[in-house]
């Protein structure tokens, strides 16, 4: 019962905000709020691999790109046909179903890409895995550059704008709740055991390769969802939005917030997105400051701002203390 109330309240709050937010804060801040939401999905999902399973992926932008382009092409090429077939529905319902179909396709495609990368490469460890994921991200980008039906180097324009505050933040809530539940399940304990000691985990009967691939696939799926929402918000995709610097930014978000903490990933995503915007006033100098800030955080607080701190743990330890 409580669950239903939570979801109903969340939906109602999102709908109210959706109706009022843009008028309240203006188009510029609205865009930043959307960007923050998409970055939260990216950061929380990457945290599943990098923070909880202890693998180091720097190719998140690749899965993000797969999702964005899959969803955009499904909607772009299948949209007119779909609208004609469901002409009896109101526009709003058509948009919603179309977006959900796009998101579904994005999640499936990114998940398959995750599986394809994960199965061969998760035998590798540490730096090597990092480099393979980076290489994979670049290969995806070069492939997209060479496919003309999705725009190639011209970029993919004319994507219908379907996502908005409501959908992005609904996806944020779904992502956070699913990753939270996953991490606190027996699978989650398997993820964390691999992070803490892979050999011991294997000795305890955890099928480490399968679990690693699983975490990789789930993480990629959410990245795909973020990509889908991004494409349907900006209405234009270009391979240069998915350079490996994009993956770096996501890593920076989770590291600044604290690896292995969902709250940290959320905080990091908000902080980095906002800091990048605030520094915009400094002109080109902003990224110089940003990179110095990054180096200093890593030198003076390497566990990130929150470390592995979570709301739930604090309650638990408080209960134990009593």
């Amino acid at each position, binding site marked *: 019962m409580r669950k239903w109330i939570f979801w109903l309240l969340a939906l109602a709050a999102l709908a109210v905000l959706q109706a009022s937010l843009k008028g309240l804060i203006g188009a510029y801040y609205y865009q930043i709020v959307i960007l923050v939401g998409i970055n939260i999905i990216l950061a929380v999902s990457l945290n599943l691999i990098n923070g909880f399973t202890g693998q180091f992926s720097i190719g998140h932008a690749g899965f993000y790109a797969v999702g964005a382009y899959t969803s955009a092409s499904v909607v772009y090429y299948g949209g007119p046909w779909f609208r004609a077939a469901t002409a009896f529905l109101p526009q709003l319902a058509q948009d919603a179903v179309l977006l959900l179909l796009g998101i579904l396709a994005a999640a499936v495609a990114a998940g398959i890409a995750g599986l394809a990368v994960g199965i061969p490469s998760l035998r590798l460890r540490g730096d090597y895995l990092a480099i393979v994921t980076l290489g994979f991200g670049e290969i995806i980008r070069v492939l997209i550059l060479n496919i003309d039906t999705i725009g190639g180097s011209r970029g993919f324009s004319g994507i219908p704008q379907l996502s908005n505050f409501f959908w992005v933040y609904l996806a944020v809530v779904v992502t956070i709740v699913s990753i939270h539940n996953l991490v606190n399940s027996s699978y989650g304990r398997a993820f964390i055991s691999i992070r803490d000691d892979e050999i011991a985990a294997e000795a305890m009967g955890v099928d480490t390769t399968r679990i690693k691939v699983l975490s990789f696939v789930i993480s990629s799926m959410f990245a795909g969802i973020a990509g889908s929402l991004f494409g349907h918000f900006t209405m234009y995709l270009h391979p240069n939005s998915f350079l490996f610097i994009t993956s770096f930014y996501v890593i920076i978000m989770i590291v600044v917030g604290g690896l292995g903490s969902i709250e940290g990933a959320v905080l990091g995503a908000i902080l980095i997105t906002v800091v990048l915007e605030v520094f915009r006033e400094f002109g080109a100098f902003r990224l110089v400051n940003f990179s110095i800030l990054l180096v200093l955080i890593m030198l003076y607080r*390497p566990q990130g701002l929150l470390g592995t701190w979570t709301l739930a743990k604090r309650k638990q330890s408080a209960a134990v203390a009593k």
Partner: protein
Amino acid sequence: MDTFLQQLINGISQGSAYALIALGYTMVYGVLRLINFAHGDIYMFGAFMGYYLANNQWMQSQLGSSLASAVVVMLGSMALSAGVGILIERFAYRPGRSPSRFTLAFWLGIVGAGIGQLIRPTAASLMAGAAAGILIGVILEQAGMRPVQQTSRLALLIIAIGVSLFLENGGQQAFGVDPKFFPQIIPTTLLNIGQLSIDSQKVMVLVVSIALMVLLNLFVHYTKTGKAMRAVSFNLDTAKLMGINTDRIIALTFAIGSALAGAGGILVSLMYPKIDPLMGIMPGLKAFVAAVLGGIGNITGAMLGGLIVGMAEVMAVGYGQSTYRDAIAFIILILILLLKPAGIMGKGVVEKV
């Protein structure tokens, strides 16, 4: 057949440039187990230093456009790149490894200089800003803000990414965003050998990189410092116990690697004269691929890897789709990691339980 030979020569000169950059990656990885993402940007820095040295009025009046000026430009740029490498090591990587002072002062000094420049674009304002930043940094350090020791490798990797971003954006700030054209410091002639016509600059690139690699090999294998370097790369803690000043050796490794990257920057700019502050990203990544391909930590392997990557890329462009150029290196990388994860010359590491 002729085009093949022509492509072969192109591939070798491209590959030897990659090899020069890959050497720095492999040496730094050898001593610190760190992928120094900033390395590609030092290559960019080297090219820009060469550009400014070669266009310097005083230099031109002193030396004219002779071979001597080319040598001075080359050595000067290598020295400056080495300096940047040492600074990066000292203020970005060392604070997490062993106690070192003035980290905060250094970085806040740079931020201060930038702010000073923003307030009023004069040298005095810049200096005042830098001084203020340094002062704040020193005060904060005295107040107890010290870097955390024993930084994890992940944190070190993020620092490397941060330094790389810093050099790219700082480069855009200092050198301007627009591409510049590297001067022809060596007159070009076409050498005709039978049906082949070879650009003299390609020969130059090849000769200089081979000379540098031979020098490096001699240094690492036949000097006492080189021996110390190999010891540090074999085991840092044991080397320290044996009385080796590991911090100094690591700084030296960065200096040599950066000097080689700077040399690579100039050599590539001789072949492809367009330079811009972001030019280091792709060659940096590809050189890293070359280092992994050859077996990371292995100097001969890095040279071999560089040649293979350069050759594969040139062949792919010559006989296939040039738009896939940037993907070739990564496809090679993924294949090699799946088939022989330690690289061609690398030693396999047995996992101990």
